[in-house]
């Protein structure tokens, strides 16, 4: 009995000590957050969590495939050690992010994690990982709050190679004000964090440019009758409506807009959430002339076409949009940082300090990535903005092909 008590007390003492200061010296490396030792011949383990099931499966699978191509392009090795990517399913939900992050955090050999695909998963997953000193590089989570200056401490270890929504907002505001010469705009969001934060950022940027927001409205994602909202907006006579809402709402909005007196000539700009063939069916004939703001793979680095070729050769199908490129860049950034901080001892074992790795990742500057030059700011935003304005040109669903329908009209 005493023995059991004693071992329990020892365990508690060890756990207490572990949860306090984590500074650790292992081999040649001393690090405030701990050191990962990789014995000679063992792989460097990088975790990955993205949407492997649910509605965004295609995106999530593509993202991790992109990361695998990046590892392959590096010869499968960093500092002479093979790199192993351990993928988990984060779905596109908070619960999925939590499960996947918890599972990855259980593996003490993991040095960094790529992902997730969605802000909801990042919100829960990133702090779980960072609590153990594991930095994460998001490949699809775009919500501004994740890298805001006042973000909670749990997000200090969070970086992303996908552009912050603030960049999309700034781009849209400058297109509307500087290119179209629009002076008055209205916005509609659907209450989701993504649409609301994006709309707020757009409003701020548009006002800063000297424009006026005449109406700032909200609907709910299940709303089917948007006429009253549109009527309300019509009374303020905006020249433009910016609304990054999702497919069904865009369908109702575009179909009903022309039924409201005074809105027939008003331009509508949607968000990247409707960058798909589905929106063509949802909107019907009114899709022609509908604008969206979305990332453009044409604006990625000149290496992207080569990547597409390699990807197709590897997986037997072409990547969807640019998702896989973000996965590639996340892996690239992580491997570059590992290369910088990894130290070997006389026996050929590799030591990686967790704090040092995080600092090296955050210090990334002008790293030539697939989506552009990656430079991280102090909050962990590393993405190169490659936005464009797209215009739909046909209501035939089968004609969906970025480049022709929708057609890139700016820049």
């Amino acid at each position, binding site marked *: 009995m005493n023995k059991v008590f004693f071992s329990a007390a020892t365990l508690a003492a060890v756990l207490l000590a572990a949860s306090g200061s984590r500074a650790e010296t292992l081999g040649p490396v001393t690090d405030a957050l701990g050191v990962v030792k990789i014995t000679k011949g063992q792989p460097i383990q990088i975790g990955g969590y993205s949407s492997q099931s649910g*509605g965004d499966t295609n995106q999530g699978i593509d993202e991790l495939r992109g990361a695998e191509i990046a590892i392959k392009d590096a010869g499968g090795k960093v500092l002479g050690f093979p790199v192993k990517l351990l993928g988990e399913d984060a779905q596109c939900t908070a619960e999925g992010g939590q499960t996947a992050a918890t599972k990855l955090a259980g593996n003490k050999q993991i040095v960094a994690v790529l992902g997730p695909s969605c802000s909801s998963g990042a919100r829960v997953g990133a702090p779980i990982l960072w609590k153990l000193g594991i930095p994460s590089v998001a490949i699809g989570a775009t919500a501004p709050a994740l890298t805001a200056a006042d973000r909670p401490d749990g997000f200090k270890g969070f970086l992303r190679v996908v552009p912050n929504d603030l960049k999309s907002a700034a781009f849209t505001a400058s297109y509307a004000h500087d290119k179209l010469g629009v002076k008055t705009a209205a916005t509609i969001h659907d209450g989701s964090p993504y649409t609301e934060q994006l709309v707020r950022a757009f409003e701020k940027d548009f006002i800063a440019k000297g424009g006026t927001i005449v109406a700032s409205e909200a609907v*709910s994602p299940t*709303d089917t*009758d948007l*006429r*009253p909202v549109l*009527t309300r907006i019509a*009374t303020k006579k905006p020249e433009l409506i910016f609304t990054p809402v999702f497919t069904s709402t865009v*369908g109702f909005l575009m179909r009903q807009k022309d039924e409201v007196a005074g809105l027939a000539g008003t331009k509508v700009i949607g968000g990247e959430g409707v960058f798909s063939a589905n929106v063509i069916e949802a909107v019907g004939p009114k899709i022609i002339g509908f604008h969206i703001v979305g990332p453009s793979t044409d604006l990625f680095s000149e290496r992207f076409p080569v990547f597409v070729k390699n990807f197709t050769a590897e997986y037997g199908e072409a990547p969807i949009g640019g998702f896989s490129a973000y996965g590639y860049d996340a892996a690239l950034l992580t491997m570059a940082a590992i290369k910088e901080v990894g130290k070997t001892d006389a026996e050929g074992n590799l030591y990686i300090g967790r704090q040092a790795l995080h600092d090296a990742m955050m210090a990334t500057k002008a790293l030539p990535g697939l989506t552009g030059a990656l430079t991280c700011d102090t909050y962990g935003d590393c993405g190169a903005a490659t936005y464009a304005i797209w215009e739909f040109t046909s209501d035939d669903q089968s004609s969906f092909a970025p480049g022709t329908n929708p057609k890139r009209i700016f820049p």
Partner: protein
Amino acid sequence: MSEVPRSATEPGAFSEWLRRSTWVDHVLLAIRISVAALVLVGLAGGLTAGTYSAADFVSFTMFGLTIGSIYALIALGYTMVYGILRMINFAHGDVMMIGSFAGLFAAGALNDAGLLNALPLLALPLVLAAGMAGGATMSLIIERIAYRPFLHVRSLAPLICAIGMSFVLQYAARGLFGTRNRAYPGFGWMEGTVSLFGLIVPIPQIVAFIAALIVLAGLLALVKLSPLGKAMRAVAEDRDAAALVGINVGAVIVATFAIGGAMAGVAGVLYALVFKQITVFMGFALGVKGFAAAILGGIGNLGGALLGGLVLGLAEALGPALVLEGFGLPAPYQLKDVIGYGMLVMILIFRPQGLLGERLASKRA
């Protein structure tokens, strides 16, 4: 104990009420007064804000009537089944979804044949018939599999089974038809708008409203005038007594489900005619609205379902503009459902039997 001496003057109605009432009555009265005050303040503010013109309000009203008539069609299914089985068929909203998809496939086929654009007045009844057939068939299947085994069981099992059925239908449809939004093809000239007294009204709204009224009138005639309707009313009144006088109760229940399903199918097609987009998950929200309409009007009461649907539709269409606008809320339309469901809560508190009253409640009591 000696009798309490009465005051010289007779107590007025108010003091009599004070004497008889309990604290519950006081609380209820306070709620009534505050709700009435809220609505009045909102109304006054909304009307003086002048955001909308009179034409806008007329247009909202017309839309409210259209969506209300669709709610009414769904509510009828709930109310008919409740009247006969005393059970809420929670899968009813999903029967409507199935009807809507049946209509979609019919419309697709007619569109391919070129009939939809050329002869919309012929095509629409065909699409409606497909929706009715789809809804009725699904309703019959549900009745056979999920409800008939519980016919003589007094428990919560049928209710739980109904909720389960709802999920089975949703996810079966998801597997068969996919999750993406599906759009109905255009019905030729019915896609346009007409100018009525200076108002621009979309034709689908008018068509849907008139079609709903025709179907509702047909249903009321069936229930009031036909032998089947008489049998339905008899079963609703007292199932055992009806059986004793030679009514085939089982057949009446089957017919009720079939008619309710057909009504839901019509609702599904008309909904799609107005909104153009359908998804496999739309049944739940619309089912809840239809259920709310049935409760609002007085469940078990056919006229009540009609009234409840129209009132709910109007409240949703006019509520945000009339009442919420008055409070200067930044985005009133986000709270549209608050108006509809808030009204439902009020009805349940102050008039649990619904606007027109549960038709059978008093007779049963």
